[in-house]
């Protein structure tokens, strides 16, 4: 019989090991799945995990895909630490892209070093505006932020669709739902020549460092962590709860907005309906998988970006559905939650029974002694 037994205290080894275990279990399930589908499992695994990054071009593309996921996830790590469930990174990302695009389209003919920063700031403000609404509703009206942020994802998507079909549509674009191309001054500069790696990756890494400093070295970060662990204790210590809710949500919304504007001014170069293949949702998994820690999140973002590329590669060379990525994302999160039980419990193969004969030998030894 397998039995779960409380450890009594959290095992920090298991806390680090559990994401690795979850990734391995997902891979193992993938092997079984490929075999059942009649695909050579080893070939499939190589196609998904190695082929996309087997050359410099691939590694560059990995960075391009990592940047938005990383930005969203690092922001989510702050709100999740505060036990605020912001599921709205996707909508905040879309709003960032939309706001940034609006400004960029006003400035297509304008030259100057200041154009790009203005566009980026507009994107950040777009994301903050969207998460700020959720914060206002939570603080002022006590609404459940899970439901409001989810609903606002759908609203943001519809506003984006309305914009590209209506006011922001390129008048010379043959009626395609796309904006005009942005001017050169509104585009993120390329970091590494001959690749698509743009300045957004540097911004993402900068954000990781900044959030790490905030959470581990600042009083604000400390207050957020305390509020997440025990809201009552935070209140008794005189921490301003409402201000912290605003701060955490605005920060994560702003970073998601930056991710969105980084996509439209980086690899895309115009506003289109498909800014994101669900980066905002993937970032939730990344935040959990990375244990809400900056280094963990960086690693998990790279894995998630690889999963996106691997899914595309599997579609091209093995004819598997593109939805493979989403399936693996879901499995990964499930296995993680299941493995996390090992942080607080240990597995015993046999229930420990008190042997019925135990008093007798001790008695015997006493009489002998």
């Amino acid at each position, binding site marked *: 019989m397998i039995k779960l037994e409380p450890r009594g205290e959290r095992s920090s080894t298991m806390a680090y090991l559990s994401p690795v275990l979850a990734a391995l279990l997902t891979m193992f399930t993938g092997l079984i799945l490929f075999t059942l589908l009649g695909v050579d499992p080893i070939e499939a695994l190589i196609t998904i995990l190695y082929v996309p990054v087997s050359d410099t071009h691939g590694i560059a593309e990995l960075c391009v895909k990592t940047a938005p996921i990383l930005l969203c996830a690092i922001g989510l790590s702050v709100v999740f630490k505060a036990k605020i469930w912001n599921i709205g990174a996707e909508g905040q990302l879309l709003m960032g892209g939309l706001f940034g695009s609006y400004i960029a389209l006003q400035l297509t003919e304008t030259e100057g070093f200041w154009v790009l920063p203005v566009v980026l700031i507009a994107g950040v403000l777009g994301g903050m505006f969207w998460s700020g609404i959720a914060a206002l509703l939570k603080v002022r009206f006590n609404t459940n932020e899970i439901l409001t942020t989810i609903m606002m994802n759908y609203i943001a998507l519809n506003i984006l669709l309305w914009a590209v079909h209506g006011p922001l549509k390129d008048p010379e674009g043959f009626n395609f739902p796309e904006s005009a191309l942005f001017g050169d001054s509104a585009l993120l500069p390329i970091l590494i020549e001959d690749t698509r790696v743009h300045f957004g990756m540097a911004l993402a890494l900068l954000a990781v460092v900044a959030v790490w400093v905030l959470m581990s070295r600042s009083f604000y970060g400390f207050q957020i962590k305390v509020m997440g662990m025990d809201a009552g204790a935070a209140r008794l210590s005189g921490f301003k709860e409402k201000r912290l809710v605003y701060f955490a949500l605005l920060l994560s919304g702003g970073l998601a907005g930056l991710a969105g504007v980084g996509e439209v001014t980086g690899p895309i170069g115009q506003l289109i309906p498909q800014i994101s293949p669900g980066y905002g949702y993937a970032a939730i998994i990344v935040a959990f998988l990375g244990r809400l820690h900056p280094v963990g999140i960086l690693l998990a973002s790279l894995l998630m970006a690889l999963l996106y590329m691997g899914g595309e590669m599997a579609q091209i060379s093995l004819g598997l559905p593109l939805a493979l990525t989403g399936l693996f994302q*879901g499995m990964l999160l499930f296995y993680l939650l299941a493995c996390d039980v090992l942080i607080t419990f240990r597995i015993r193969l046999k229930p420990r029974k008190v042997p019925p004969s135990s008093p007798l030998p001790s008695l015997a030894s006493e009489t002998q002694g």
Partner: protein
Amino acid sequence: MDIDLITNILYAMIRTGTPLLIVALGELVCEKSGVLNLGQEGMMLMGAVVGFIVTLLSGSLLLGFILAMVAGVLMSLIFGLITMELSANQVATGLALTIFGTGLSAFVGSEFVGKPIEGLDPVFIPVLTDLPIIGRMLFGQDLVVYLSFILFGAVYWFINYSRPGLILKAVGENPHAANAIGLPVFKTRYLAIIFGGAMAGLAGGYLSLAYTPLWAENMTAGRGWIALALVVFASWKAERVLLGAWLFGLASILHLVFQGLGFSVSPNLLAMLPYLATVVVLVILSSNQTRSRLVAPMSLGNPFHARG
């Protein structure tokens, strides 16, 4: 506005509200037992895709609906196992269920996108269908809509007047007290989770077999989430779930109303109305903190550990 338009709007309102009603009734029972399952969207999608594929391959709508419910139940059992046996966080597990269901349904259904099937036909009840205005609305629908009326009655009676319903509520209010007087907390919660799964599967099946008889990725379009908000809107009361589901049905077909009145508004802006309505309703209902704390099941979302 003429009588015909009103009749059609009322008819479409009920039809659109039906999947919301079914999934929200399932979630209501689930939450009454103290379990918050945020995976409705994922379970609905699995119900939709499985029901569609089964009907396409077998030609039987009945079999499609049954297996859609089975798919929903299997999904809910994953949730049950992880939250009950492994005491994982219900919020995170529910989210995972939705992400997993979205991915799995898209994966399974990728070869079936856009294929046509014969959808469920309406069944007209003689004489009553011809009643002015409400005839089509209440008596000119398909069988699943009639089933949703029965389901509502059953859930209403179960929660308010039956002994097992009392046990359900006791477990949801205070599982430790319920356990102390010998009520089966785990069994009750499992059954509630399974019922929620079956209803989500049925609602998903309704979308892909009757409402729009085809399969498309993510075709539930947030209905599972709206249903979760509906339960809050309803203050955990079955009769208000019914009212709310039909009102949201109306919000989702407002474009018909606008067309009828001769307004031209962007379809994308109208498409966001149900979601906007959800936010507005949540704001109105949650603003009184004391009240929202009193109407929700006390132990909602809290795991129960006292087994063995």
